[in-house]
């Protein structure tokens, strides 16, 4: 199928311990960078989708706030979206649908956050304020038992995976090490200059067993924006288009510790069918790595290996530089920067444009990108390609 939409611009602000602007400032800057990348200006935007990070708080009207901040006057599409970590890829999907339907022509899809505050930077794991337990809203019962935060909930699922499939901390560590090797080739990665061995991984402190610190994604201040427009129009813009060949979502519901399966199983069917491609056509894989564990689960659920064999697959070196299946080639959210699902999308665009420099995967033509949220409960997939 000939793709209808394309990514025409990418904007990534400085990432990490950047304290001189807030979440709105990062969002505006990311959109400006993305517009400049595409060779457009803000007057060309008629669509705006925002995934608010933690700093936007309960900003149900976050996209309106961003519109006001940017002085956008002619939006025909505006919404604040939240499907957890699946949102970023889902925003591109909704933008594509709206463009295909003729509602608008040029949509900025935006994520920004600034949870790190000086002078006391937080640790590298996500915060402990989660209110909704994986097992329902327990009104303080989880806290009474000492269960706090998302790390603790994912840890429960990871422990089941270890029990059922024999997955081990060596396997988790192999994910961290492989991605750090990629980050060491990416000057924009926060941990670019920090090598990592499996021994270093095991020495890193426990956060919530079975998760070491290095199993958990970074916390980052920053913003990322992507400009989506029609495939036809994208051809006339400044940079080579990255075509949206396939897209799908999967929201399985149920108890993730019971199923040990993400929504990738559903999402990939729709996305690959739309693209008319198979896994064998995929050159680079950019997975949503909130934890090392989720990389293993998603490799299984996409079918790159059998269920339960994600750990050995990574430990075998297949996902590292030089491996058969390059995964999270910028270092991912574990080692590069954590902009929710915008991290894997941005790296796919960089690879498909051939902008990866020292980390460039040769002949990268097709990228599979995932978003994952809600403790393996929400999922989105994009199949992107530099070729139609």
């Amino acid at each position: 199928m000939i793709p209808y939409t394309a990514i025409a611009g990418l904007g990534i602000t400085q990432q990490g311990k950047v304290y001189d602007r807030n979440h709105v400032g990062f969002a505006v800057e990311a959109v400006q960078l993305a517009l400049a990348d595409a060779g457009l200006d803000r007057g060309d935007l008629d669509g705006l989708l925002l995934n608010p990070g933690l700093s936007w708080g309960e900003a149900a009207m976050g996209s309106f706030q961003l519109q006001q901040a940017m002085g956008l006057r002619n939006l025909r599409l505006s919404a604040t979206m939240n499907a957890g970590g699946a949102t970023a890829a889902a925003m591109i999907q909704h933008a594509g649908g709206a463009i295909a339907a003729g509602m608008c022509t040029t949509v900025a899809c935006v994520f920004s956050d600034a949870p790190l505050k000086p002078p006391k930077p937080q640790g590298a794991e996500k915060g402990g304020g989660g209110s909704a337990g994986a097992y329902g809203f327990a009104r303080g019962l989880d806290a009474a038992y000492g269960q706090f935060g998302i790390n603790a909930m994912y840890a429960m699922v990871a422990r089941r995976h270890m029990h059922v499939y024999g997955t081990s901390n060596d396997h988790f560590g192999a994910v961290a090490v492989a991605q750090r090797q990629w980050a060491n080739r990416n000057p924009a990665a926060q941990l670019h200059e920090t090598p990592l061995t499996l021994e270093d991984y095991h020495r890193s402190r426990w956060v919530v067993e079975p998760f070491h610190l290095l199993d958990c994604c970074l916390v980052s201040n920053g913003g990322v924006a992507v400009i989506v427009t029609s495939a036809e129009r994208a051809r006339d813009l400044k940079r080579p288009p990255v075509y949206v060949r396939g897209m799908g979502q999967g929201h399985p519901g149920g108890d993730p510790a019971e199923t040990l399966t993400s929504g990738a199983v559903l999402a990939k069917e729709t996305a690959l069918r739309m693209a008319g491609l198979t896994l064998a056509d995929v050159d680079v894989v950019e997975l949503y790595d909130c934890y090392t564990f989720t990389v293993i689960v998603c490799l299984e659920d996409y079918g790159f290996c059998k269920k339960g064999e994600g750990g050995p697959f990574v430990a075998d070196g297949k996902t590292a530089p030089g491996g058969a299946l390059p995964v999270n080639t910028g270092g991912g959210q574990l080692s590069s920067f954590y902009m929710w699902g915008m991290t894997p999308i941005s790296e796919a665009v960089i690879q498909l444009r051939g902008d990866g420099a020292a980390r460039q995967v040769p002949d990268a033509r097709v990228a599979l990108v995932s978003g994952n949220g809600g403790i393996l409960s929400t999922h989105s997939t994009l199949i992107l390609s530099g070729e139609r």
Partner: protein
Amino acid sequence: MPPYTKPIPTVTPELRPFFEAAKRRELVVQRCRGCGTYRFPARELCSNCLSRASEWVRVSGAGEVFSFNVMHQVYHPGFAGEVPYAVVIVKLAEGAKMTSNLVGVLPGDIRIGMPVRVVFEDISDEVTLPRFAAVSSPGV
């Protein structure tokens, strides 16, 4: 006895039967009147059959460890003296799952599938918290 410094759950109307039963040293779980599915914590309707009718029924208190983690980070000062401590998900014999703690078992000794049985601890005048103990031999 030192004062209790960990978070004390609020006795909300929907969880009142749970806490009242715990005071009596009984474990109760909500059961759907439509399809009989046990569920915990309390919810307004059954996600299996969508019935809004439910009842609280006493369960055996027997179950097994379904999963667990070990918290090494202090998220609340009340747990500062306890890290590392384990949080468990117990799968009750009747089917519902509960987040809880094990008493008398070191984190390193916890195994998935361990048989456990409910025990009760009074933590305030209003709240008694069900926790679980390992069943080390048949009949205990």
